């Protein structure tokens, strides 16, 4: 490694000098800090998209179609990266075609069925392969486990989404989540996302997803 640095340093200096002669400057490649869903209003609501390296917590009751808010991010992430969807429900399992129908790439989406992913999927959660990890209905996410996941997400610039099958409240907090939201579909058919913490906008209403 040292040898490589020794070789590259003079090359870099030389390049910088040549660029300076032409009035240019060497800039490192800008790192993308957000994952954008392609749904403009949603990205704006989350402050530019889903930030890499962070945990977010979503209260999405079952039977209320709130997971539609998450799928655009899964779709966007799966175009280039591997994604992991962990389902923790005992009597229900994922129906993959419904994910694929929303544009998620089958080749890049891995599913696991686990109620206690921190124990059973430890190696997968800390692996750099998965850039987007969704923990749906997981149990055993103690503050300690969330702190550990947060540090790993930050280190590996992963986005971890913790989906709860109930509406979140401010009574029980989660200090490790950068933002906390509740989402559902109203009887009128429009989708609603309500912020509890970490976002500047209080509410987002969307008539539907294309």
């Amino acid at each position, binding site marked *: 490694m040292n040898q490589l640095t020794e070789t590259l340093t003079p090359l870099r200096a030389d390049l910088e000098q040549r660029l300076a002669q032409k009035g240019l400057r060497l800039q490192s490649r800008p790192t993308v800090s957000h994952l954008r869903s392609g749904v403009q209003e949603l990205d704006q609501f989350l402050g530019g998209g889903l930030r890499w390296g962070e945990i977010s917590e979503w209260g999405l009751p*079952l039977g209320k179609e709130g997971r539609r808010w998450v799928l655009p991010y899964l779709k966007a992430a799966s175009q280039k990266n*591997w994604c*992991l969807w962990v389902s923790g429900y005992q009597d*229900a*399992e994922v129906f993959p*075609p419904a994910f694929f129908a929303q544009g998620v790439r089958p080749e890049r989406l891995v599913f696991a069925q686990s109620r206690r992913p921190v124990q*059973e*999927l430890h*190696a997968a959660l800390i692996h750099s392969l998965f850039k987007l990890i969704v923990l749906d209905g997981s149990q055993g996410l103690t503050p300690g486990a969330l702190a550990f996941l947060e540090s790993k997400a930050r280190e590996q610039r992963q986005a971890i989404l913790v989906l709860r099958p109930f509406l979140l409240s401010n009574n029980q907090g989660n200090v490790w989540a950068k933002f906390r939201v509740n989402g559902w579909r109203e009887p009128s058919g429009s989708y609603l996302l309500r912020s509890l913490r970490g976002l500047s906008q209080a509410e987002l209403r969307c008539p539907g997803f294309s």
Partner: protein
Amino acid sequence: MIPQQKKHPGPFLALEATTENISVAQAAWSLSPEVMQFSESVWLVDLGATWSYWKHRAVGQHKGLAWLWRQLLERHFQSDATQLFGSDPGYRGAIAPHPWAALLLLNSQAQHQVAGLCTFEGKRGQRFWNRCSWNTWEATHRAAGGPFKQTLPKFDPGGFNRAVGRFAKTAQRLGFERPSFARSLPAQGVQNRYGLLLSQLWSHSFGAGPSQTDPFVWTSAQPSPPPSLHRVLDDSPVLWEQVEPSLKPDFDQLSKIAGTKQVLQMDWCLFLTEGEPVHLQLDFRHPHHLGSEQGHQQTALARSQLAFEAARSQGLHRLDREEEYCELPPVVGWDLTLTQCIDEPDLMLDLFGGLAEQGSGLDSLRRLENQLPIPLHRYQLHWDWQPENSYAEAGEFSDQEATAFAPGLLETAKNRPLLVRQQPARLEQPPRQLEFCESTSGHWWAASGDVNREYYRSNARGRSVWVFQNAQGQWYEQGLFS
């Protein structure tokens, strides 16, 4: 050689070389650790043991499994001579759900002097299957005399051969030109006239369906002594953290002994300060090459840790003369033996060599799956409108098949929920607030199962539920719009 009834479902490959001087056994062991020598020239391979691995590899190539196996076999059997002077792939192989069907298909292929690989489900395979002659059928049964004599205690080769001859003659007299024409013959009738064994074999090949008892006894062939390593420990560790530092260099050492072999199952025999040695079985979901993790051995150590911790917590070890269970006593040494391996030579690795998969993450995913106590799943679409059959594990079917139907399947899936019940739950009362979703027609040609279903979204009680009514008017809840 350990005779045993087969437990996993296969499929099975019957394989023989059509050119001399090429080892069929080596080709067989490159595909699966479960191999049986049926006759001098014919080998059987149980592909079920490595099924998920080959599926992964096929997905990496965007091809089907049959294509992948064909490529691997051709690489192995094609000598310089066959490459230069002819189109003979150098081998003949047949894949079928049962070893007996694979053997019959192989012999039918040989009868038509055709080389290469065919599968039972494929068009080519079905052609050979339907054209299998009584002569071929008889010859296959006679060839089975040797293996059956070894494995079935009361087997009478003379009587069996006579029964086979009589059966073929009678069937031909009845107008059944070929075995495939005689599918309608009842198993009970065949058993009464020609014996139980012949009737069971008939059921597993041309008969109406597999019999409950499988007469085919699998005799696993073992390659020369399996790679193993013995270790005596200076200290007596109790905890995993104490065991790991000594185990890591042993895996490195074992990888050198194993060479190109990839392990599927390893026996870790622990010698303890007291009591009998404890055997821990380390199972790998995909063949794992120890040499690829020299220095860290992350995968092998992850599997060892799972087994070691399980042994400690479940109290596998029981003290002599005492009924109570306790944790493992200190470990004083161990034996590591690679009990199941495949030997995929470099030649084959060159073909796929990770090159096409490099950067795709599939290799990382395979390693990861080997380290986890629970499986990971990837899925693909499958051309079937019934929700439960509209997808399959990735690699089960060729990409082309899924792609052809993808637009229609995806459009349908837009109105289907993300979460479904493992089994639809019967509803006593008809659901309320229904919104029609789709009408699905099932497999009308199949004997069982619902044929027509009307799907609705029920919005009663503040939840959006996916329900259906079958042709008998019964209501079921199948999913949850989440």
